[in-house]
């Protein structure tokens, strides 16, 4: 079966008509966060209740992806009226259906938090929480696969590359490498076999953007990858997902088979001579497999140990063929870029960081969840307006971005715009989008120790500085938090950080010292208090003095 644009529009039209046939629509979040507090049974109960009352043609109950306010789950959105119900139980179901068309159920209402929604700009997550991720028709009804159609039938490869380059899109996987340049490099290689890989390993502990996108709108990523395949000349794609995300894996597999069935993946897509297939590969619990050469090794069935670059995967990648590797969110940005043009995208964000960024807000913050904001938004706005500030009247201390490769940003930089370069300037990185807020009760030495423990146990062990150095740094941090360290230990700590940063083989080792270096830089007094006064200023560590 080969589709053309009329078929696509037809599917979209039927879907839109069906949707409009309903007076009311109840969207139940069935992404992992809400599912873990029981949204699945709530959804079934709602559907049953609606059925029991014979309202099937009047009210639609559907499962949707993450609505963004994950702490308040199970979360339900009423499309008419735009209100949210939080913490919904099966027992509430009758009241909810009863209240449709009347005044809402007050006890369940999520406090009308307009800042949370209004300050956001949704491109990557435009469909999250709105469409049923398990039905391709709903994606198509939101102009899904129109970008791919446009690219294949009306644009040359060169034009696609041109649009992506013009958009100014930079890789969302961490380093911010210009996507257009990466695509062009792969496109220029001469090889009849090339690969496109979507990096969905999302190893940063405390980040769940990629998981949410895959669970809430998997087709968007598939479409982005297919466009990339066309532009670079690849016909086989892989999505490397961490095994810890079973729901994302399930939805991606489901989406792939739907797309195959419609002929959107496979041979001669949209009657062109372009063919593209995608396979899923599972990670197996190794952070370092997010590094591109390690990821390739893992797909090839080996241990995920990085290798020296060059040669880069763009020239020499999977099974020795040119390979394009991009992050989930990077691919998710592609369909709108093709639909609206690179210029449109370049109009959003800042001079050097275009578009939006999805962040996973967590830690000591009122609105924990998933947000998407234009690049360049001041950190303060994210923390205090969208995030709702610090709970329990505690004082803000720092924001950690970039996970184990990033750093802690202190109070004095709260007015800094959040973009690649500004974050880099203060010693952190954008990373994949984890944003953990810490208040006065968090000890920064302890936080540094936490990340170093992570890097130590995730180090692949290939190169000596990272393998032994991270352990040595961790030991010193333990000594400091236990109140047993001296000033010399602090000097050794700094010396080791410098060594590991500059001599390690891959990005894991090279960036592992960042959390220590930024906390040493901005919270040195906390280190000194542990060392000189044997005291933890935040009261989080049991130092020798306090134990005795």
């Amino acid at each position, binding site marked *: 079966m080969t589709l053309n644009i009329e078929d696509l529009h037809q599917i979209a039209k039927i879907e839109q008509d069906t949707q409009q046939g309903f007076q009311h629509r109840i969207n139940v979040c069935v992404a992992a966060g809400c599912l873990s507090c029981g949204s699945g049974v709530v959804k079934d109960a709602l559907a049953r209740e609606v059925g029991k009352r014979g309202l099937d043609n009047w009210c639609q109950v559907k499962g949707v992806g993450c609505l963004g306010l994950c702490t308040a789950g199970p979360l339900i959105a009423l499309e008419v009226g735009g209100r949210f119900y939080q913490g919904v139980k099966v027992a509430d179901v009758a009241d909810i259906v009863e209240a449709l068309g009347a005044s809402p159920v007050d006890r369940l209402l999520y406090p009308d938090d307009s800042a949370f929604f209004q300050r956001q700009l949704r491109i990557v997550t435009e469909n999250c929480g709105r469409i049923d991720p398990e039905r391709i028709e709903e994606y198509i009804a939101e102009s899904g696969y129109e970008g791919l159609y446009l690219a294949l039938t009306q644009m040359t490869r060169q034009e696609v590359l041109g649009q992506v380059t013009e958009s100014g899109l930079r890789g969302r996987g961490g380093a911010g490498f210009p996507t257009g340049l990466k695509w062009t490099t792969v496109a220029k290689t001469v090889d009849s076999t090339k690969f496109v890989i979507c990096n969905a390993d999302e190893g940063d502990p405390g980040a769940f953007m990629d998981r949410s996108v895959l669970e809430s709108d998997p087709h968007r990523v598939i479409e982005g990858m297919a466009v990339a395949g066309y532009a670079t000349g690849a016909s086989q794609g892989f999505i490397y997902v961490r095994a810890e995300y079973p729901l994302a894996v399930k939805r991606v597999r489901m989406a792939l088979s739907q797309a195959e069935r419609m002929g959107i993946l496979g041979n001669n897509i949209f009657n062109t001579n372009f063919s593209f297939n995608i396979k899923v590969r599972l990670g197996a619990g190794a952070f370092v497999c997010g590094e591109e050469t390690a990821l390739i090794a893992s797909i090839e069935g080996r241990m995920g140990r990085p290798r020296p670059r060059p*040669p880069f995967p763009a020239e020499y990648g999977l099974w020795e063929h040119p390979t394009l590797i991009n992050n989930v969110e990077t691919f998710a940005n592609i369909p709108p870029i093709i639909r609206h043009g690179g210029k449109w995208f370049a109009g959003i964000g800042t001079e050097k960081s275009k578009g939006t960024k999805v962040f996973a807000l967590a830690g000591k913050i009122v609105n924990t969840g998933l947000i998407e904001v234009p690049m360049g938004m001041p950190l303060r706005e994210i923390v205090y307006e969208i995030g709702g500030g610090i709970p329990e009247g505690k004082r803000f201390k720092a924001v950690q971005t970039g996970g184990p490769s990033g750093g802690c940003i202190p109070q004095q930089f709260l007015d800094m715009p959040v973009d690649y370069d500004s974050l880099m300037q203060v010693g952190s990185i954008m990373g994949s989008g984890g944003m953990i807020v810490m208040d006065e009760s968090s000890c920064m030495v302890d936080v540094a120790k936490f990340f170093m423990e992570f890097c130590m146990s995730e180090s692949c062990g290939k190169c000596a*500085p990272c393998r*032994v150095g991270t352990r040595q740094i961790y030991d010193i941090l333990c000594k400091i938090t236990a109140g047993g360290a001296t000033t010399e230990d602090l000097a050794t700590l700094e010396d080791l950080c410098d060594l590991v940063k500059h001599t390690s083989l891959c990005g894991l080792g090279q960036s592992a010292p960042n959390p220590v270096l930024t906390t040493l830089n901005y919270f040195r007094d906390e280190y000194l208090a542990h060392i000189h006064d044997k005291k933890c200023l935040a009261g989080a560590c049991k130092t020798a003095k306090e134990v005795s």
Partner: protein
Amino acid sequence: MSHHPKGKLRTDLNPSRLLTFKIDDRDVSAREDESILEVARQNGIAIPTLCHLDGLSERGACRLCIVEVRGVAKLLPSCVTFPRQDMEVITNSERVVNYRKKILELLFTERNHVCSVCVSNGHCELQNLSVELGVTHVRYNYLYPEHAVDASHSRFSVDHNRCVLCLRCVRVCDEIEGAHTWDIMGRGITSKVITDLNQPWGTAETCTGCGKCVQVCPTGALSEKGKSVAEMIKRRQFLPYLQMMRGRQEESWQK
């Protein structure tokens, strides 16, 4: 000569193209597919190495061979970096010399290197490196891991206390002997070389008893039984020869 990086891995490097560049202010000439390390050694310029061994694939892992390149912020491992026309390489700046010392010190802290009772005392590459680099004391804490000695093999034994995880044994056994008895289990600081399913070497069915791994091991980790300290000198002349003769085309397991 070795298949990484000069086999299929770097098809972009053309052995028939020549270039000139500078190492420590000396003009040198090279084929495009010769590593900086190779060219340096041809010209009598010493760069310390540990994981590199002529005749085996490159890993770029020990980081002792790092050099500076003018205009490049990153330090580059010379065993897997290839020269470009007019590149200026510095092999002995204070910066790299200091880093090398520290890396070596880290290796000494990782396991229990008690040289006075080691079979390789006097002809150990780790020992030689510390002399070469002038490492006289270790500024980091010793980790004192507990490792056993496996003497189950009839002719050889392995003492993990002396292992520096260079993986020469893994590579020679795979790439030259073709047995692939050795590999590395775990990750990070808990990594350990193993035979077959992490079983006593003597019970490993795949081992042919050729002894190549013992010969390439830089330290006293792998040794021949019944040899005195004075006899425990490793012989490796066979390596480049076998490599050349076998001219293995297929992909190496150990990348």
